[in-house]
């Protein structure tokens, strides 16, 4: 992928994770899924997003140091923080559909 688009992958992962979490919760509630199933599905999604972002950051550490690479790394880092912050709610907030 071309560098300027590549640098947007981090925020795109955050966006996809956010959207999928919200959609999964809405669909799960509409279909009456048990709260534990909901919580575990959301946790799995979050773990996947964090792993992907973590791998990108690990690989990026060895890549070129031009402007696009630096911006890409910074965006990956902010996306990681945002996903982690959202994921922190999962064990703390009831997964009840109300």
């Amino acid at each position, binding site marked *: 992928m*071309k*560098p*300027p688009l590549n640098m*947007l992958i981090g*925020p*795109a992962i*955050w*966006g996809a994770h*956010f959207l999928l*979490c*919200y959609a999964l*919760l*809405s*669909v799960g*509630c*509409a279909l009456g899924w048990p709260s534990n199933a*909901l919580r575990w599905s*959301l946790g799995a999604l979050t773990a996947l997003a964090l792993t992907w972002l973590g791998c990108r950051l690990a690989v990026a550490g060895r890549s070129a140091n*031009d*402007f*696009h690479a*630096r*911006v890409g790394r*910074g*965006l990956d880092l*902010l*996306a990681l*923080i*945002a996903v982690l*912050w*959202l994921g*922190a*709610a*999962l064990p*703390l*907030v*009831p*997964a*009840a*559909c*109300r």
Partner: protein
Amino acid sequence: MSDGGERLRAELTRIWGNPPGWRALAAVNHSAVGRRFVVTGLAFFAVGGLLAMLMRVQLAVPGNDFIDQDTYNALFTLHGTTMMFLFAVPILEGFAVYLVPKLIGARDLLFPRLGAYGYWCYLFGGLLLYAGVLIGAAPDGGWFMYPPLTGPRYSPGPGADFWLLGVTLAEVSAVTAAVELASTILTARAPGMTLARMPIFAWYMLVVAFMILIGFPPLILGSVLLELERAFAMPFYDPRLGGDPLLWQHLFWLFGHPEVYIIFLPAVGMLATLVPVLAQRPLASYAWVVIAVIATGFLSFGLWVHHMYATGLPYLALSFFAAASMAVAVPTGIQVFTLIATLWPARPRLSVPMLYVFGFLFVFVLGGLTGVMVALVPFDWQAHDSHFVVAHLHYVLIGGMVFPLFAALYFWLPHFSGRLPSRRLGYIGFWLLFVGFNLTFLVMHLAGLLGMPRRVYTYSANLGLDWPNLLSTVGSFVMSIGVAAVLLDLLLHLRLGRRSPPNPWRADSLDWAMPLPPPPYNFASIPAVDDRHPLWRSPALAQELARGDHYLARAEADRRELLATDPITARPIQVVVVPGNSWSPLIMALATAAIAVGVLLAQYWLSALGLLVVITVACAWAARRPRLPARTAAGHGLTLPFHTHHPRPPGWWGTALSLLADATIGASLLFAYFYYWTVNADWPPQPPPATDWRLPLALAALAASSGLLMATQRLPEARRSAGATLSGAAALQAVFVGLGLWWLTASVAPDADAYGALLWAIAGWLGLHALGCVSMAAAAAAALARERSERRSVLATVGLFWHYSTLQGLALAGTALAFPRLA
């Protein structure tokens, strides 16, 4: 050039100049259009401010009867609507329209007529909104227009219609500006201006343009659906028939929260441009600012439900939005800290723009802190709909937008007018505004915490609310006098201001590499850039450009020429000829307004006529292409193709970006479908209509039309059959519309339930695309009949729209019809 470029500049002035007198209304030059936006925005700001003053007088003392509750409802509705839709967004767009081409080394925006059209749509939208006030039908449902309050049952008068149609016109204007700003920033930067060397304001505006393209369409769709409910009883928001009023809140805030950042980011972008100049040192951590702007753009789309904490959504869903609302403080904080870090080692003079920068830092940071407070669900439940939230949003919006705007106005005034404002009036204006603002809104936090509700026209004595409200009213008068001093200074400086020297702030960017006020062509020759601070690196650059030492130093055949470059490497790739002054943007905007007025008056023939004129003018724009040779010399030994012979002409970029907004509407329709499915136990409310032979045949015709167009694109240029195959593809689109409409009319009524209404809305959307395809085919056939060698360039743009429309048609129709049978 032996005459120092004088003859070149005189010729360029003749070619690029605006017509005199009343014919100046036909000007399409970006400087003229940008100034129009700014002046009109300031006028609406003054009107919105007066409305606020009336509210403050009413609230000065308990039990006041200065105005009644209905008038108060109309006042807060108009105040919010004016400030958000008619002041904040358009004035910042105006600044961007004026500044961006100058900052990136271009002579104009890529689509000057589109920019002019956008301005007229904005003006007519604002006038339409206030026309309701003049005939005693002011909207009074709040700036957010929540149904059912604004639906046909509880708001039977035309006030809500004035709002919906006027605001939609203003939204169209924003989208047009976003399309041309994004395409210009991506493809018309000066040679050598790579992404890493782009002026920081261009980065801000690029991100904001994408945010507008994704954020504004949901509200356009929501408004159209509400207007359809009001005009034709299509029950999108009526829960008795499967609709849901909360769908409006989702669509509104999907727009509404990104809009806060759409307002904030350009304003901070202007500060990030002027603060380094005032500090006379580069912006600290340029790369981190770019990171923060992009991150803010993304995160701002994950905040919309924090306006809906009190609507009974699941706790976990609320926590997702609370997390995103807090996370966005990180990139926002980065932007504030980089400004502080830029100023920290410098000793900037306390000029008027600098005062407003300090005002921004103080006020906006306070607003940001209360923003984190209301992002917390339990706190928000306590403060919801109280004056605490009013105080918070004014700290964010006035701190994050008005203070930077005034800093920018004072900074770029010499650019707009060639004259310097009064320093004394500037200081007086700032201090009155700063003190008055804090007196008004700091106290308002307390009033909110004491229980003062929003949108209530009076309060009882002895609740502890008397003195905070009185102080707020006094503060608002002080603030208004400050704003009046600023506006007076702006007016007086036009006549009394001293002439500005060139580059009075010793700035680094290309916008100052020109005489003041700037000539209509901006640059006599297009600069080549090899640094982020071209004027600091080459102080004589302005003279070189004026002499014609750089690219495109010519004035040939009365053509308005731009240099287009590769979006990433900024290598020159084509010469673009943009259209000159024209009445067609005004005519097209009048026709667009006629569509809205026709709906308002239930005179649908007028709407149809307006649509016909819009399509005709658009086709004429597309079909009337300048006759150009394949290649031309661009200077410095460079030979480039003209845009009419390039496979990625500007029209392709404009279409691609417009389709992003288009796709957001399509996605919002899908969102509406699935939203109804999640909130209704039985969805669709009645069994879905049976499909017969007509529907598969209609969809097959749609797919076949795309196939035929693809075949046309692959025809060798020597073949003459493009017109015939284009006609065939257009005929297949007509078959698709005819069969689809036949089936729909026989199968489901638009007012039966929300499912039927949604099917009709999707059909209307697809029908508009079919109309677009047929119109583009007609324009392309007309253009190719004159010049066959441009086929690749013409069909690249037509094909992009056509194939996208086919894919969207299949996706929307497939989902709406197949999902009820699967679920």
